[in-house]
C-alpha cells in the first residue's frame, strides 16, 4: 500500500483543508454562525486531543477531563475580573493552574486503576465544579462574564474572529503534532507499554507511576489551554463548563473518532458537534436519538470513525 494515497489520508487531508478554508467560506457566504461553531469545534478538539494522550495511548480512563477546561477558563476569567488582561499573565496562569490540579489529582488517582480510576477522576472533577459554584465573588453558580479578551502584543487581536479561529486551529495542529511526537518518543513508548501491561513494564525497571503521572499532567495542561481558549471564545466561564457530562462528551469525541489515533479526536469532535447540530435541527429532543446511537457505536463500532476508515481500506484492497 502506498501510504501517501489512501482513503484515510485523503479523508484527513480533506478535513484539514476544509478547516483551513472555513473562514474564507464564512466570509463569502456571510455566515458568521459557521465560524463560531467551528471555533468551538476546534477548541473542543484540542481538549479531546489532550484526553486522547492519556485515554487512548495511556489507557487511563479519566472521567474528569472537563475540570481542566473549567480551571483554564476560570484562571482567565478571575484574572480579567481582577483587572489583569494581559494574555502573557492569563495564559501561563491557566496552564499552571491546570498542571497543578492534574498533579494533585493524578498523584492520588493513579494509585488506583480500572474502575476506581474512572470514579475518582469523576469525583474530583465534580469537586472542582462545586468549589467553583461556591465562589460567590466570581459569580458562583451563574458564572463569570469576561468583558475583555486576553490581550497580546500588537498584531494579535483575539477579538478578531477570523484571527482567533486561526490561532485556535494553529494551537490544535501544534497539539496534535506534540502528542504525536510524545507517543513516538521513548517516554511515549513506556506509556503505551504501561497501557498494555503495567506490571511487566514495572518488572523491566520502569517506574510506571511516575511516567503516567507526567503524562497525566501534560494532558491536563494541554486541556487547560483549551479552557483558556474556550473562555475567550464564549467571553464567559461558569461551573457548567466543567460539569461531568462535559467530561463524558470529551470521552465520546475521542472514542467516536478513534482512540490512540493522532487525528481521531479531531474527527470525533467534528462528527459529534455536527451530529448535535443536525439532530437538534430535526427535533428538540435530539438527545433521545444521540443516547442510543452512542450505545450502538460502543457495541458495533469500537474503533470509531478512524477504525471504520481502516476497515474500509482493508476491504478495498482485498
Amino acid at each position, binding site marked *: 500500500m502506498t501510504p501517501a494515497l489512501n482513503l484515510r489520508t485523503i479523508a484527513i487531508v480533506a478535513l484539514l483543508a476544509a478547516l483551513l478554508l472555513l473562514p474564507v467560506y464564512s466570509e463569502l457566504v456571510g455566515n458568521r454562525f459557521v465560524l463560531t461553531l467551528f471555533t468551538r469545534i476546534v477548541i473542543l478538539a484540542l481538549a479531546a486531543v489532550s484526553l486522547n494522550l492519556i*485515554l487512548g495511548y495511556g489507557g487511563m*480512563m479519566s*472521567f474528569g477531563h472537563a475540570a481542566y477546561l473549567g480551571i483554564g477558563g476560570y484562571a482567565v476569567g478571575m484574572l480579567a475580573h481582577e483587572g489583569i488582561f494581559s494574555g502573557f499573565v492569563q495564559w501561563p496562569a491557566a496552564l499552571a493552574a491546570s498542571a497543578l490540579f492534574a498533579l494533585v489529582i493524578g498523584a*492520588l*488517582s493513579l*494509585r*488506583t486503576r*480500572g*474502575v*476506581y480510576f*474512572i*470514579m*475518582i477522576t*469523576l*469525583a*474530583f472533577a*465534580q*469537586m472542582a465544579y*462545586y*468549589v467553583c*459554584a*461556591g*465562589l*460567590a*465573588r466570581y459569580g458562583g453558580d451563574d458564572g463569570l462574564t469576561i468583558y475583555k479578551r486576553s490581550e497580546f502584543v500588537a498584531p494579535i487581536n483575539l477579538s478578531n474572529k477570523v484571527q482567533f479561529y486561526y490561532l485556535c486551529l494553529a494551537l490544535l495542529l501544534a497539539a496534535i503534532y506534540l502528542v504525536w511526537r510524545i507517543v513516538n518518543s521513548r517516554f511515549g513508548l513506556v506509556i503505551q507499554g504501561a497501557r498494555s501491561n503495567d506490571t511487566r513494564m514495572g518488572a523491566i525497571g520502569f517506574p510506571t507511576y511516575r511516567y503516567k503521572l507526567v503524562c497525566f499532567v501534560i494532558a491536563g495542561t494541554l486541556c487547560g489551554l483549551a479552557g483558556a481558549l474556550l473562555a475567550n471564545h464564549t467571553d464567559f466561564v461558569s461551573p457548567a463548563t466543567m460539569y*461531568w*457530562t462535559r467530561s*463524558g462528551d470529551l*470521552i*465520546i469525541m475521542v*472514542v467516536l473518532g478513534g482512540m490512540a489515533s493522532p487525528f481521531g479526536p479531531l474527527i470525533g469532535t467534528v462528527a459529534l458537534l455536527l451530529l448535535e447540530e443536525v439532530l437538534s435541527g430535526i427535533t428538540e*429532543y*435530539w*438527545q*433521545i436519538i*444521540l*443516547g*442510543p*446511537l*452512542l*450505545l450502538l*457505536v*460502543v*457495541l458495533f463500532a*469500537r474503533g470509531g470513525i478512524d477504525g471504520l476508515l481502516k476497515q474500509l481500506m482493508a476491504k478495498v484492497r482485498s
Partner: protein
Amino acid sequence: MTLFIEQCLNGLQFGLLLFLLAAGLTLVFGIMDLVNLAHGSLYMIGAYFAATFAAWTGSFVLGAVLALAATLMVGMAVEVIAMRRLYGRDHLDHVLGTFGLILFFDESVRLIWGPEGMSLPLPSWLNTSVEILPGVQYSSYRLAIIVITLAVAAFLYGLVMRTRIGMLIRAGASNREMVGALGVNIKLLYTLVFGLGAALAGLAGLMQAPILTVQIGMGENILILAFVITVIGGIGSIRGALVAALLVGFIDTVGRSYLPDLLRLVLTPNAAATAAPALSSMLIYLLMAIVLVVKPEGLFSAGGK
C-alpha cells in the same frame, strides 16, 4: 443541642438513603463487573413514577408501591435490552454505553413529563413531627425513611447471606464462569440482580422525592456521591457501602451546617462566609482522598477485585 441532634439524624437519614443507591451500584459491579452510570437515572425514574402514581391513585403509599414495581420492571427491561450486551466488555464501553442511556432517560423524561419538574406532596399523617427525646421534635417522614432503609438493609443482608439466591449472588461475584458451568441460569440471575439494584435506586428516589423536588438531572448529582461511597467503602462490598454511606451522609450534612461556625473561629466573618460553601462541598472528597492515600482499595475491599 437540639439542632445538633436533628442534624445528626438528618445525616443518618441521608446516609442511609445513599446506602440504597450505593448498594445497588456495588452489587451490580461486584457480580456483573459492570460500571453503571445510568444508576442515577433509575433513581430519577423512581421519583417520577412515584409522583405520577401518587397523583393517579390519590394515595402516597399505593403510589410508592406501584412506582417501586415499575422501576423494577424498567430496570430488568434495560438489562435485557442494553446491559446484557455490555458484560465482559471494557469498562470504557460500560461508561460510554450507560452515558448514552443517561442522555436517553433524561430526554425521555423531558418528553413525557416536561422540563418543569414535579412535586410529591406528603400525606398529612406523615407530614408531622414526633417527639423522639424529651423536648426534641423530629420530622416523622424522615424518621420513617430511617426505619424503612434500616429494614431494607436488614433484608439485603438476609437475602445475600441467608438465602439460596444470595448464595448464588456471592458465588457469582467470586467466579462467574464457574457458577455458569455448574448449571445456574446466570442470565436470569443477572437480570434479577440488576432489577434489584434498580428497585433500590428507585426506592431511594421516591423516598427523597417529597424532601426535594422531582426534576431532571436529580439522579446525576447523587450518583457521584454514590461513586464516592463505593470508592471509600471498597467496590463490591455491601458492608463497606453501608459504613461509607453513613460516613458521607453524616460528614456532608453536619459539615454543611457547622463548618461556617467553625471557620468563623479562625477566619474573619467575611472570609469565613466566602470560604464555607466551597469548603463544605469539598469535605467528602477530602475524605475520599484520605482513604485513597491510606487504603487505595477502600475500607472494606471485597478482595481480589
